[in-house]
């Protein structure tokens, strides 16, 4: 028995193929949208994973350091390092700034990490070029997305930094590329103002009679020196000993150090459930509508394809073809269209995905799920067409 579906497709393969490709591009857009959503979630996830921490210690009562500002003194790590179960601590400072690079503004997240020995918490876990920061000051590691090149000198606020290494997929929760600098420099970037602000601040202090009293020499200088100090960080990243329980250690820190500590699970909850919740739902909403539109278009295409073949189906009926044969032909064509559409969609999503400014993550399970959904939609859509085909009067083959 010959396959009616392939015969029919071969009869008008150009039309079939282009319909499939058109459908594929639509499926590609849907898959990309799913990829954008996954990318957003992944941005939050890599931020947590890349920091290499098990606990985040932040200012009491804040959702810091990523979702809310948090500021703690840079010597609290000493108290934390002594708690049982803590293997290593590292101060970290995070600050998102707008940077001029190559004539255009880019938004980057400056990450201050301790660099006294390699592999401290917060440092990028792998590099794609160059070397880690080996000098206590004025060296930086940049994410490739920031557009910086190895050996380049970049100016961040008051100082020039040399890019000594490049890394990949080190982004903030909103997808901004990170630039890692030594902690002391990051503290300066964050807390030390520009020259104008410093001069104004000094003048303001000098005008305050409480700080500039006659007969108390040195008071003004002392007040000004203390105002220019940068002794804060945003978080202390804590690495736990292998057998330590994160919740127990976090509880100890909250209870005795009067700080807030988040475990990895809590931080994931903050970043993914709280920080990107609205924008993720926005994308999710759009994804749902796109999926419905795709389904409607698939159904419409298959329906019109069938209606275009009214005469042929009527002839088939006239020569005594069974309903099953006709239904099989339409279903096979619909599924074939779905396969072509899915393949084109996956290929196009894979090709244009990297061109997006933010990360697009195409997961295999999304592709498999997408394939199943496309096939289901095609099968369901073909039901309408089959119903229409079966109700065709064989007389149409002759009359009309």
């Amino acid at each position: 028995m010959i396959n009616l579906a392939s015969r029919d497709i071969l009869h008008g393969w150009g039309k079939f193929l282009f319909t499939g490709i058109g459908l594929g591009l639509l499926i590609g857009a849907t898959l990309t949208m799913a990829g954008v959503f996954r990318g957003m979630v992944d941005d939050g996830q890599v931020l947590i994973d890349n920091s290499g921490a098990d606990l985040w210690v932040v200012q009491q009562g804040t959702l810091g350091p990523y979702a809310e500002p948090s500021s703690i003194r840079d010597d609290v790590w000493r108290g934390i390092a002594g708690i049982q179960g803590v293997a290593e601590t590292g101060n970290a400072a995070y600050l998102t700034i707008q940077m001029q690079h190559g004539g255009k503004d880019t938004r980057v997240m400056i990450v201050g990490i301790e660099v006294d020995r390699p592999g401290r918490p917060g440092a990028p876990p792998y590099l794609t070029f160059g070397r880690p920061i080996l000098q206590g000051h004025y060296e930086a590691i940049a994410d490739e997305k920031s557009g910086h090149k190895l050996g380049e000198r970049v100016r961040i606020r008051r100082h020039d930094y040399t890019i000594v290494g490049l890394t990949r997929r080190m982004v903030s929760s909103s997808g901004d590329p990170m630039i890692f600098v030594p902690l002391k420099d990051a503290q300066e970037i964050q807390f030390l103002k520009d020259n104008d602000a410093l001069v104004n601040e000094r003048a303001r202090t000098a005008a305050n009679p409480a700080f500039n009293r006659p007969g108390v020499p040195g008071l003004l200088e002392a007040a000004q020196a203390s105002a220019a100090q940068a002794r804060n960080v945003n978080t202390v990243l804590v690495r736990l000993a292998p057998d330590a329980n994160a919740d127990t250690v976090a509880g100890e820190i909250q209870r005795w150090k009067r700080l807030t500590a988040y475990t990895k699970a809590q931080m994931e909850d903050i970043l993914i459930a709280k920080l990107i919740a609205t924008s993720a739902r926005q994308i999710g909403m759009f994804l749902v509508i796109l999926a419905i539109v795709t389904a409607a278009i698939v159904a419409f295409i298959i329906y019109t394809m069938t209606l275009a073949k009214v005469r042929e189906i009527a002839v088939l009926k006239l020569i005594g073809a069974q309903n099953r044969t006709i239904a099989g032909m339409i279903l096979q064509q619909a599924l074939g269209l779905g396969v072509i559409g899915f393949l084109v969609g996956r290929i196009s999503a894979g090709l244009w995905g990297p061109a997006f400014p933010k990360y697009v993550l195409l997961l295999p399970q999304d592709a498999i799920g997408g394939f199943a959904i496309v096939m289901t939609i095609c099968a369901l859509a073909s039901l309408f067409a089959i119903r229409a085909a079966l109700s065709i009067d064989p007389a149409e083959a002759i009359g009309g």
Partner: protein
Amino acid sequence: MLVLVALLFLAVFGWIVATQGPLAPVKVTVAKAAESRLERSLFGIATVEARRSHAIGPTLAGRVGSVLVDQGDRVRTGQLLAEMEPVDLDARLAAGAASAAAAAQRVQSAEAALVEAQSRAKLAGNSAERFADLRKKNFVSQEAADAKAHEAAAAQAAREAAAATLAAAKEDVRRAQSELAGTGKNRAHLRLLSPVDGIVTARQSEPGSTVVAGQAVVQVIDPTSLWLRVRIDQGRSSGLAVGLPAGIALRSHPGEIFKGRLERVDLLGDAVTEERIANVVFENPPTGLAIGELAEVTLRLPPVERALTVPAAALARQGAAQGVWRIGPEGRAHFRNVVAGAASMDGLLEIRQGLTAGDSVIVHSARMLASETRVKVVESLK
């Protein structure tokens, strides 16, 4: 035809799945562990400071009378820099001089009184001797002789009293002179003199302003004593020792490296910033050096002559363990624990344990590696 198109489709699809996304092997670059010379160095941020800075001010509270020098003036040892207002000191000096003069006058009058008393005593003594003689020969009465003897004794006592008055008057002169000298010293302290040959760096008070004891009016530094105060992170300060050669990059001279030498290492570190403090001197200080200028100092430690090194980027971490990623059979990554030593500024890291020369390690990777990740070695990551 249809089959061909379908195959082409599947081929492109397969290519995309295999080269992108999570199923593709992770691209990595590798390097071999090799014995090499490890140039080590320490790095710190420094400010230019004067080794000796003299804050010159009065020893007593008072008002500034005049300031004779300004910022940037060269001064010599002993040069008058500023003068405090003397208030009543000049008057007290005059009073002291007058009372010294009066005391001197009193010495003269006491001397005259002594001469008179001596003369009186001599006369009374002679007269008493004469009467005693006449009494022996019974020419005068006993009473008259006794009266003369008494007169002589009284005159003698008067002479001694006059001598004592003279001595007291002389002491008085010394006291008045000392007082005068003391007032003069106080007066001299109001003249602020430069203790060194140097340059005025600050004129901190103007004539008419009141300063307390010890407050600086003028600041003077010795310009030949300029050096750098370097702050070096404690975590990277091992090997800090006097005499290390230093490269100094001044902010005002971009691209230039000045030679220097570590002169002193402070025993006291900064406990708050967790830094060590050291001082570096220039071999040939550049002209126009400004105090407070920012500098970057690189101290060269003696190199490790033969060390097993890998690129520093190869050092990775898995959990709490430190190590490197290696490529095992079937092109899968596996972790090897190592003990790392010092790192050099050019990006080499000493491996103390865990590797032998010739072992290849993964340096850069396109993604985070995990055990058993499939990897593909490339020359460079794009």
